[in-house]
């Protein structure tokens, strides 16, 4: 009787071990593509967001003066702005950024993805400098670097305002 019991337990333990091992193998196998996927999407975010801003900037400079009064002038301005190719490329680029952001946030932590947003401020300035030949003073570069750092620090704090306590009741963030 005892022997049957021990065999049963060892068999159950063995099955459990096999299941655990299979789960471990599966997770180690599936982990690599997830990391690559996350990395690629963050790279898309870092490029598409700032590129969108630069294209919007280029398009708005091309669109010329922006009169918004009287309303007929505003309509003409809007038509001129949305007839500019760079504006649509910029909007498309920002949509790609938005989509990549939403997708990556569906499996990766916010604090893991968020540095991409902080880097975006610096990349926007770099693209403005190199692609649009904007003049950037050393003081502005310093300010941009501090902004990136500040946004990074903000992003590393817990983004959830509510968390579950062991009793299942929700309590406010106290960090």
């Amino acid at each position, binding site marked *: 009787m005892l022997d049957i019991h021990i065999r049963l337990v060892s068999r159950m333990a063995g099955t459990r071990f096999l299941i655990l091992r299979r789960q471990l193998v599966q997770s180690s196998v599936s982990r690599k593509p997830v990391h690559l996927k996350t990395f690629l999407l963050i790279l898309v975010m870092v490029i598409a967001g*700032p590129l969108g*801003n*630069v294209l*919007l*900037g280029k398009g*708005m*400079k091309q*669109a010329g003066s*922006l009169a918004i009064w009287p309303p007929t002038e505003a309509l003409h301005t809007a038509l001129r*702005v949305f007839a500019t190719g760079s*504006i649509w490329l910029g909007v498309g680029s920002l949509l790609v950024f938005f989509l990549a952001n939403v997708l990556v946030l*569906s499996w990766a932590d916010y604090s893991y993805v968020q540095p991409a947003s902080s880097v*975006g*401020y610096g990349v*926007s*300035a770099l*693209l*403005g*400098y190199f692609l*649009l030949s*904007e*003049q*950037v*003073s*050393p*003081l*502005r*570069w*310093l*300010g*941009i*670097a*501090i*902004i*990136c*750092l*500040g*946004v*990074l*620090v*903000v*992003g*590393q*704090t*817990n983004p959830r*305002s509510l968390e579950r306590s062991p009793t299942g009741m929700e309590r*406010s*963030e*106290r*960090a």
Partner: protein
Amino acid sequence: MLEVVLFLLIVLAGTGGELCVSRAMKAVGEVKDFRPAAIARVISRALRVGWMWAGVGLMALAFFSLLGALSILNVSFVVPVTALSYVAGALGAVFFLREQVSRRRWAGVFLVSLGVTLVFLGNR
């Protein structure tokens, strides 16, 4: 003067829009199912919340203000200054959503404010 108005609109309307959308999405509930049909149901539920419409309207206003700012100013100046939305976001979270903001987040908000001040000074 026009620059200041545009930046105020970008930051305040943008942050206000995000807070309204955040409030609407809290009313809708946490999204756990990411299949297209489930997402479509979440969107249709969200569109029945008044805060969502207010949020989308404010975000559109912020976007057009950003276009206005980019028509007269450099990208390397406009985009970093829009980081002020983190300052407005922290203040809005405290006063509008009654959330608690950690010291570390306030430190980040201070760094962003310092950086924006330097960017403004560097533009002169």
